[in-house]
């Protein structure tokens, strides 16, 4: 027996494990002749002695666990009494996960349905942005990107508009009768075209209107007819910018009688 073989047997020797008697005697003889192996054996044997003490120490689960388990066992028995011996009780944890998954699915379906209904709803969500004075203007979101006729607003309308601190999202108000003709000193505006999703627009609390000049071709992007004779002239537009700095909607303005069809326009209240 050499030290390597002794090391391989050491734990079984210390644990008094299954070692052949002849091998055990050889190992012990080696330990007698080798001080290092003898010390290793002594250390391992003392460790085994402590482990033996720890093993005998005991320690049990609290009684309340037994009580809870017995209750669970009885409930299970009530549910499966006629066929307890043959049927496996559904596991508790997986069923909980299935419940959560079902709830999530229902919630997702609800959200999807809500969004679909909103998208299909013919009503228009109005966002009211107040001016610094008492006057206010309605910003409406058309149901679809169509050449919706504009409405008239005073040419003296201040821009940009300041936002009110109170919530400004309101339900659609009944439409006013369309103006037959636009006065000379008024601007004609199209309806607002949303630049973001409808949900973002409806949740907007305040915003500013910024007047910009755009190439006239931009009108075509919103389904508006473009006067080819004035194609090289820019068109004035107002962009509604939310409090977060994101552009939410746009409308086009014209000082003159608009080049696009003017049906369904309404005057400012």
């Amino acid at each position, binding site marked *: 027996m050499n030290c390597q073989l002794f090391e391989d047997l050491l*734990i079984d020797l210390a644990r008094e494990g299954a070692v052949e008697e002849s091998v055990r005697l050889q190992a012990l003889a080696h330990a007698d002749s080798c001080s290092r192996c003898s010390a290793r054996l002594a250390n391992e044997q003392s460790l085994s002695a402590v*482990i033996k003490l720890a093993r005998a120490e005991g320690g049990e689960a609290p009684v309340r666990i037994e009580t809870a388990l017995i209750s669970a066992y009885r409930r299970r028995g009530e549910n499966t009494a006629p066929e307890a011996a043959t049927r496996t009780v559904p596991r508790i944890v997986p069923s909980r996960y299935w419940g959560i998954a079902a709830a999530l699915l229902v919630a997702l379906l609800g959200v999807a349905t809500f969004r679909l209904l909103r998208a299909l709803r013919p009503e228009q969500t109005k966002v009211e942005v107040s001016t610094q004075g008492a006057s206010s203007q309605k910003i409406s979101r058309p149901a679809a990107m169509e050449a919706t006729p504009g409405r008239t607003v005073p040419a003296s309308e201040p821009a940009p508009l300041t936002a009110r601190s109170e919530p400004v999202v309101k339900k659609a108000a009944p439409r006013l009768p369309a103006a037959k003709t636009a006065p000379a000193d008024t601007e004609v505006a199209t309806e607002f075209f949303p630049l973001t999703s409808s949900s973002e627009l409806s949740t907007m609390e305040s915003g500013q209107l910024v007047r910009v000049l755009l190439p006239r071709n931009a009108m075509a992007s919103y389904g508006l007819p473009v006067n080819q004779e004035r194609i090289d002239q820019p068109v004035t537009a107002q962009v509604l910018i939310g409090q977060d700095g994101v552009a939410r909607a746009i409308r086009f303005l014209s000082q003159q009688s608009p080049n696009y069809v003017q049906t369904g326009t309404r005057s400012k209240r």
Partner: protein
Amino acid sequence: MWQMGFDDATDIQLFQLASAGDEAAFLAFYRRWQGSIYRFSLRLSNSIPIAEDVTQEVFLALMGGASGFDPSLGLFSSYMYGIARNHILRRMTRERIFERIVDDAEDERQGRQNTRGPSSDPLGDLTRKEMIDSLHRALATLPLRYREVVVLCELQELSYADAARVIGCPEGTIRSRLHRARMLLLEKLREMTKEDARAPRIEPARCLL
């Protein structure tokens, strides 16, 4: 009492009776195994709450059936330790307490739980308790792969083969891990002894009058 009749029943027999709706068999089965499962969970996780939860989870899982048990692959006890181990690892991963050491409050609770009746050898008990505490503290510092082998093979007295089935590794791996784990344990215990020796001692004052 009623439990006396189950003393000779094997684990499988008890489990089958319990599965068939015999509450007394279930109780006997629980009382036979709860201590082992609880201690295994406690030593592996170093956490009393986890040990309690896992003990409960193991028996709840068994109530749901033992469809994963194959008698040809090992003992029913190995199957239960396997369930417990999976629950413990899941909890430890979730709570990230792989190397947590039992704190004083838990130590105290453990001490209360393990308190036995009055002893005729209080000093011997104290020494024994100190040794066991040192072992537990040293065990708690071992990496999990070594700790679980010590808990299974040394504290729960599973054979190498059964421990290998619980952990899901070859028997040779268990042997080598146990060898290494015992060396680490000895090193830790030696360090603890040195630290204790360095601690200031209260020397008795000699009366000079």
